[in-house]
């Protein structure tokens, strides 16, 4: 007699076998002729410059943390939604308080500016020239806009 969890176990086993089988079959069949030039990282045909272990900007880690918090929040919502009809108004208020706290956190993060990403900061070039320009009188080109 197969319990519910037995079915899940078979599901996992089949998944693992399917994936491992594919990988092993291709590992056996495909030609494999590595040599140093082929394994060098591809950089548009050029000699690779610098190493890939560059220290990333902090904003990537901050965004990851923010995502983690709101992802966990959503995980709590799923079981709540299933049993919401039986529990009635009490569950609704309970969850409202929970969401409210997180929205305050979200507002804090928004105001602090951790969410706005990298905006281009174009630098408009200028020519250092006492007098110039083609048909108007001496006009400096527009000031550098942010």
């Amino acid at each position, binding site marked *: 007699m197969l319990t519910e969890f037995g079915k899940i176990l078979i599901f996992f086993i089949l998944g693992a076998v399917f994936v491992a089988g594919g990988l092993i079959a291709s590992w056996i069949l495909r030609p494999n002729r590595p040599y140093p030039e082929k394994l060098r990282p591809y950089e*548009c045909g050029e000699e690779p*410059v610098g190493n890939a272990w560059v220290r*990333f900007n902090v*904003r990537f880690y901050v965004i990851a943390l923010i995502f983690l918090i709101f992802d966990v929040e959503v995980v709590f919502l799923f079981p709540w939604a299933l049993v919401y009809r039986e529990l009635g108004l009490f569950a609704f208020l309970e969850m409202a308080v929970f969401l409210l706290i997180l929205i305050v956190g979200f507002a804090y993060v928004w105001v602090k500016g951790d969410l706005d990403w*990298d905006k281009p900061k*174009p630098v408009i*070039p200028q020519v250092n020239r006492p007098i110039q320009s*083609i048909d108007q009188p001496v006009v400096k080109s*527009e000031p550098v806009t942010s």
Partner: protein
Amino acid sequence: MIESKVLPTDYVTEPGRIRTSTGKTLKTDEMIINMGPQHPSTHGVLRLEIVVDGEIVVDVIPHIGYLHRCFEKHAEHMTNYQQVIPYADRMDYLTSMNNDWAYSLAVERLLKLEVPPRVEYIRVIMAELQRIASHLIAVGTFGIDMGAFTPFLWCFRDRERILDLFEMTCGARLLYNYIWVGGVSHDLPARFVEKAKDFCRYFKPNIVELNNLLTFNEIFIKRTADVGVLPKDVAINYACSGPMLRGSGVNWDLRRDDPYSIYNKFEWEVQVGKGEMGKVGDVWDRYIVKVREMEQSVKIVEQALASIPEGNVQAAIPKRIRPEHGEAYVRTESARGELGFYIISDGSTSPYRVKARSPAFVNLSVLPEIARGCMIADLVAIVGSTDIVLGEVDR
């Protein structure tokens, strides 16, 4: 806004700091990315060494020379002035008619030679058709740079019609060797004028169709407006020319302002960027100047076809051209801008020195100025809008 530098700048963690090829050492969180010779969006073998801070381009160092085919050395070794023309063809392989014309004009200036009127008309027709074909490629590949594949197919479909016209007259699709010193290699075939008129009638609505598809597309405008702004006086200081200069609002076109041949006989207007979608001189302006120039070129071709005279197509020149001692610099308006030839002759039949001033080489030299502080995706748009052809940049 998160300051991109958490640590003080002189606090070095890694042992070896990377240096760019111009010797500048990088700050700790900057990276060098090679938009190298093999890259879908560099329109040929151009290598851009980009110093990047996150997504923002801090500095661009172009490396060219991957297609340096020694044009000037070949020109000095040719035993006859006519033999340089196939090499001038291959210099800017998208506008070979304009290249041949510029070179022939320079040699004719040295010889103080007048060409018969029919040749002038044929040359204008061929050069303007070639300008349309070159702009079609520029617009088509610029569409691919922005991610739109359909304009590429449409533009190449229209361009094939022009190539059929060229193939009818000179037998070749891309590099023609048709405009010689002193005239053209042979006369137009019988039904060329009629077929060219058909093309003009066929092509006009296509430009409107292209505009509806790409030019006023919301995504396209958001990707190209206010990007890579080139102010007027920087464009002049860097001697940019063609759609690059006109896109920055300078009303300057060699066909009208430094006149050569018979352009003054036709009426057409010079298209100038007016900053409709963003600042004057941004990528969208350079793009729209190219599209509107195609309409003007169709207008010129129609007027030239209507009033083409009869006559022979070869001026009376000796077999071996021998201009007297002297030098001349002549410039013409090719599709990318001011294409000039500076020829020094020492009285023999082979040129002493030929310097080709190619517009793409000069327009590309302004790239580090206008690409500072933009995003990497914008850099693709800026390189696409400068419309460079590497055969001409590297000569």
